[in-house]
């Protein structure tokens, strides 16, 4: 039975996510403009007044514009799938947030089914397979992309959908390998437990398994389909890819979903590798909290997420997009081996780390951190040596044949 507590949490989460998405569109436009030496949107303030507020009214204007657009369906589309695709994507992306903690707990006890416990800041507390759930829900996005590309009855959309499908499926693997290391260290798939474990040891997973962070970060970027991995959309040659034929509220759903994917990727990076709500000397690490601590934990988590999102936005303008063969090489020949090496290192450490570091008289986590960074550097160097040192994919001179 959904309790009042859950319903309130769901309402707050949806409202918060939609507002955040709207305002992060504005932030994204600002960042994009600043990087291009422009000022960005700074005109729209409070409607019907001259107050500008640095353009903070822009999301309202954008929303009204999107909602008041003509609802236009191209002829010859597969109507059922065409309407279903954005809905599937959006619902799946929203569902993933059910198990993502937005903080730790509130110091109010509630009684449910005879047991008393504090309110946890997550819609579905205590889901033991939280990590799996997030990525299961997240990978449903590929359905939306493929259905949208197919149902649009447009060659560009289809190509975009195919590219995107291949990309999302390929990067699921390194993404999973990146998580496995964290799960192995924490001994649990619960996101709350993963955070608590990092908070109690005081060492974030980013420090002890930098290779895992690297793999997860790059794969997370690719999964969220943003530059430099936006082959699905490829504005330059595919005119928007799978959502070329969408407009109005359906396009809004798709665009919001893309932001939600970026949120999920940022939340997971922060929770799995950067200690979630933990910050040394500020948030404590116990499960007993007071009001200030509870609020600080929420702010710390959201602050970290915001920084990650800002990095996403800056990254968009920093590097050229990958060619498709480079994208696939990256997934299968770079990230997959790196992820396996990371997994192997952690497996060895989980098995022998305690004994070895006790024999050496050093704290286990310090030993692990040193090992992790050495493995990162060595693995990176080996890959750099092993991969072909040109990116040219033209036919070789020898195979060019007679002229």
């Amino acid at each position: 039975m959904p309790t009042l507590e859950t319903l309130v949490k769901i309402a707050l989460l949806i409202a918060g996510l939609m507002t955040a998405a709207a305002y992060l569109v504005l932030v994204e436009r600002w960042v994009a403009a600043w990087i291009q030496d422009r000022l960005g949107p700074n005109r729209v303030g409070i409607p019907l007044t001259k107050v500008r507020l640095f353009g903070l009214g822009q999301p309202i204007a954008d929303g009204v514009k999107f909602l008041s657009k003509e609802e236009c369906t191209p002829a010859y589309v597969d109507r059922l799938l065409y309407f279903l695709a954005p809905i599937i994507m959006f619902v799946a992306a929203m569902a993933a947030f059910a198990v993502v903690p937005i903080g730790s707990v509130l110091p109010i006890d509630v009684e449910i089914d005879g047991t008393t416990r504090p309110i946890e800041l997550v819609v579905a507390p205590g889901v033991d397979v939280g990590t799996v759930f997030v990525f299961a829900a997240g990978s449903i996005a590929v359905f939306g992309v493929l259905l949208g590309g197919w149902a649009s009855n447009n060659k560009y959309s289809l190509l975009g959908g195919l590219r995107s499908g291949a990309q999302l499926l390929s990067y699921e693997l390194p993404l999973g390998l990146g998580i496995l290391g964290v799960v192995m260290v924490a001994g649990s798939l619960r996101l709350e437990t993963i955070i608590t474990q990092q908070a109690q040891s005081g060492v974030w997973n980013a420090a002890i398994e930098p290779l895992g962070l690297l793999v997860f970060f790059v794969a997370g970027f690719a999964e969220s389909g943003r530059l430099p991995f936006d082959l699905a959309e490829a504005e330059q040659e595919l005119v928007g890819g799978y959502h070329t034929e969408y407009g109005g509220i359906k396009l809004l759903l798709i665009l919001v979903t893309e932001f939600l994917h970026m949120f999920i990727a940022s939340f997971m990076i922060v929770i799995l590798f950067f200690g979630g709500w933990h910050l040394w000397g500020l948030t404590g690490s116990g499960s007993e909290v007071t009001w200030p601590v509870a609020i600080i934990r929420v702010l710390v988590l959201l602050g970290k997420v915001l920084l990650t999102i800002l990095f996403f936005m800056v990254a968009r303008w920093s590097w050229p997009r990958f060619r498709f063969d480079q994208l696939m090489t990256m997934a299968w020949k770079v990230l997959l081996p790196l992820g396996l090496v990371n997994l192997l290192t952690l497996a060895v450490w989980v098995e022998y780390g305690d004994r070895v570091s006790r024999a050496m008289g050093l704290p286990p986590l310090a030993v692990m951190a040193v090992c992790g960074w050495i493995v990162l550097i060595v693995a990176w160097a080996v890959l750099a040596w092993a991969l072909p040192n040109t990116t040219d994919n033209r036919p070789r001179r020898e195979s060019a044949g007679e002229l």
Partner: protein
Amino acid sequence: MKRDDPGKGDRHLLPTGPDGCFAQKVPVPVSRAKLRWIEEPKLGPAGRTYLPLFLGGLTTTLRHLLGRKVTVQSPEERYSPPDPLIYRGVHRLNRDAEGRVKCVACFLCATACPAHCIDIVAAESPWPDREKYPQTFNIDELRCIFCGMCEEACPVDAIELTSLYDLSGKSREEMIFDKAKLLGIYDMTKDAEPMRSSRNGG
């Protein structure tokens, strides 16, 4: 010239692509010896780690993120062209020292105009110093591509482009500038932008 002689005259012919893209019935007269394959430069040890590209891209964006912005906050701020005398904005028709239109209706500007936006009706001049003068002189500013060829062509420096750039109107008819309006633009801009040549009584 022999067709299979790879001489200078055949340089415009493309070689057949290896994938048969440009396959032609006739053999392409480019000898293998003259083909030059351009190889992509090999990456060094640093380039192969991807780190220089990574850091280079990031520092470039961060530098611009914090750098000076070039936006002009129109309409509160006005963009002023660095050199208004060479800016190609709205046309004007110059007046001579006695305040008469300088144009002699020679049609050189209308002939030079690639967009055919200048329409002149010539009439016999009421003044003794020239034979003709423009009875009407219309420029369709919506057709104009602001190339400046009319200005180049004018033998008496009568038509000039000013530095007014924010040209707008509410109808197409309004955007067809007649002689009075073009002379008015001269009156408006003559102080800020003097005539480029003082020849012909300017």
